[in-house]
C-alpha cells in the first residue's frame, strides 16, 4: 500500500531538540530529545585499541548502551547490537584500519520511541565527531494500535494500548531500509503501510539534520 504524497505533507513527528558537544572530553557527542524521550551519545575515535580486537582491513566498532538504573541486561545487549549493525553500514571503516571507534549511549528519559531517538542521536554524534561516513541514517518509530491502525511516532499513552511497535532506519541516499526492528503481532499490510509512512517521514528527520548542521557550521565557519 503506497501512501499518497498529499498525506506525506501532513506527517508530523514529535518536536526534536539537539545539542552538539554536550560533553567536552569526547571527540563527538550529541544529546537529542524527541518529544519526552531523551538520549545522550558520545563517540570516541578512531583510537588505539588492544591488539586482539584490532582488524587489519577496517576499524572495530564498539557500542556500549546503559540505561538509567545502570543494571546490565540482555535487552541492552540487544540494543547495542542493533546500533552497531546500523552504524557499521554507515561508517567508512576501511579508512581507519587497526583502530577502534567507541560509541557510548546513555538513556536519559524513555517515553516511547527510544530506539529511534538513540539511533538518530548516534548519527548526529558521529557527524559531530568527524568520522567519515558513507551516508547518514534516520530512524522512525511506528506503532499498530488494537484496531490495526498504524500510528507514526507514537506517544507514551498510545504505546500502552498498541499491539506492536516497529522501528525503521533508512539511509539518506536512496531511502533504502537498512535496519528494521519489530515487536509484537501485526498484519503484512500494516507492516507495508508503516514502512512507507516511515520512509516518507524520514525526510523530516533528514531535514532536521541538515538544519542543525547548517546552524552548527555557521558557528564554526
Amino acid at each position: 500500500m503506497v501512501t499518497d504524497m498529499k498525506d506525506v505533507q501532513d506527517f508530523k513527528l514529535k518536536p526534536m531538540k539537539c545539542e552538539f558537544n554536550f560533553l567536552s572530553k569526547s571527540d563527538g557527542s550529541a544529546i537529542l530529545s524527541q518529544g519526552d524521550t531523551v538520549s545522550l551519545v558520545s563517540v570516541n575515535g578512531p583510537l588505539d585499541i588492544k591488539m586482539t580486537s584490532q582488524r587489519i582491513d577496517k576499524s572495530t566498532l564498539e557500542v556500549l548502551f546503559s540505561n538509567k538504573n545502570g543494571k546490565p541486561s540482555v535487552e541492552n545487549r540487544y540494543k547495542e547490537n542493533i546500533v552497531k549493525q546500523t552504524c557499521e553500514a554507515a561508517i567508512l571503516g576501511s579508512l581507519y584500519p587497526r583502530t577502534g571507534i567507541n560509541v557510548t549511549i546513555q538513556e536519559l528519559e524513555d517515553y516511547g520511541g527510544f530506539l529511534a531517538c538513540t539511533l538518530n542521536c548516534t548519527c548526529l554524534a558521529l557527524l559531530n565527531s568527524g568520522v567519515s561516513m558513507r551516508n547518514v541514517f534516520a530512524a522512525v518509530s511506528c506503532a499498530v494500535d488494537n484496531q490495526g491502525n498504524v500510528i507514526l511516532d507514537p506517544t507514551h499513552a498510545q504505546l500502552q494500548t498498541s499491539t506492536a511497535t516497529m522501528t525503521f532506519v533508512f539511509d539518506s541516499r536512496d531511502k533504502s531500509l537498512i535496519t528494521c526492528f519489530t515487536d509484537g503481532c501485526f498484519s503484512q499490510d500494516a507492516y507495508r503501510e508503516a514502512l512507507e509512512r516511515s520512509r516518507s517521514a524520514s525526510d523530516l528527520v533528514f531535514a532536521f539534520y541538515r538544519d542543525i548542521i547548517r546552524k552548527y557550521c555557521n558557528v564554526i565557519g
Partner: protein
Amino acid sequence: MRDTCLSNCEKNFIQKIVSQGHRLDGRNFNETRKLDISFGSEYGCCIVSLGETKILSEVTCEVAQPKQIRPNEGIIFINVELNPMAAPQFEANRQTDLTVYLVRLLEKCYKDSKCIDLESLCIVVEEKVWSLRINIKVLNHDGNLTECASIATLASIAHFRRPDFTRDGDRVIIHTLTEKDPIPTVLYHYPVCTTFALYSNDILLTDPNFLEESVCTSNTEEGINTAGGLLVLGMNQYREVCLLDLTGAAIYTSNIVHKALLSAADKCKKYVEIIKNAVAKDDNLRQKREKINFSDIITTEHMLALSRKDLNIQLKHYDVTELDEKDEEMFSDEDDIKPEPSKYDVVATVPNTAELKSKEGKSEWIEVSSDSGED
C-alpha cells in the same frame, strides 16, 4: 585507549603560574566553577554539572530483606560507574581504583555520617525494608569528581520519594504513585564533599579541574612529589566535619587543614542551600503539574564550542560573555573595548620590534614604524 600522559611542559607551566597566583581558567584560588542542577521526570534523578564535569545520579528503591544485625533499618547501596563516555581512557564495565575510591568516599559521607534516617525505611521488622540504590554515572570527567558526585548524590536523595504502603494484617500493599502521594526521604543533616588541590604544601586550590588535579598528584622532574595532593573535606550545614581524606601529599603543618576547613564550611553551607532551593523549586513546579524532563537541559550554548564562549584558558580580567554581546561592533570599532588592566606593557625597542616589559605606568598606544607602510 591508554591514559594520555601529562607533558613536562604542562606540569612546569601549571606549577609556575599557580606559584605566581594565577589559574589557567582565570579563576581565583577560592573560586568554584559554575554549579548547575537539573532534575529528570522521575523522582530522584538529576544531572549535576560543575563546570564541564557532568554527573548523572539516580536513586531507585526496592523491597529487600534487612541485614540480620540491623533488622529494623533500611539498606543503602552506592554504585559509581565510569565508562568511555566520561573520558576515552576508561574501559566499560571495569572497576578501577578511581571508582572504588569514589564509592568509599561517598559511603563515608552518606552512610557512615548517618545523615539518612534508616529506620524510617523499615516496612516489617526482620522481613521487609526499603533498599535504596544510588547509581552515580560520570558523563564527563573534567576534574573534581568527588565534589560533583557528592552534590549529585545529595540532590538525588533529597529529591527522591519512595512509594507509600499500607499494612493489612500480614499483607503489605505498596501503592503506585497515582494511588497515594509518595514519601520523601528523611535527612537529619546534609553533608557535602569539597575538594582542594594542594600545591607545594601551602597553596589550596578550590574545585580543581582535570589538569590541576593531575598536575598536583603527578611526580615532578626532580623525583617524587610529596608537596602536592588532594584534600577532600565533607561537611554539613552545621559546620560539622563528616569526612576528611588526603591523597598524595605529606603535610607537615596542620595550619593548611584548618585553612581548608574554614573555607570548606562556608562552601558546603552554600551548596546545601543551592540544593535545597533547587529541590524546593522543582517540587513547586511538580505541584503545579508542570512537565519536568531532561530535554530542558538542551540549549544552544554548546553549539558554540569552537567559538570563544567555551574558551577554557582565560585571562584574569577578560570576561568573554561581556564581549559576546557586542560581537559585531568589536571588530569594527575597537574603541568600545574597555582597556583591561595588564601587568605588562608593550614597549618599542629596536626598529620594527616591540617587547613585553613589566608595567611601570599607564599603558599607552605605541607606534612601530614599518617600511612597507605608507612611506
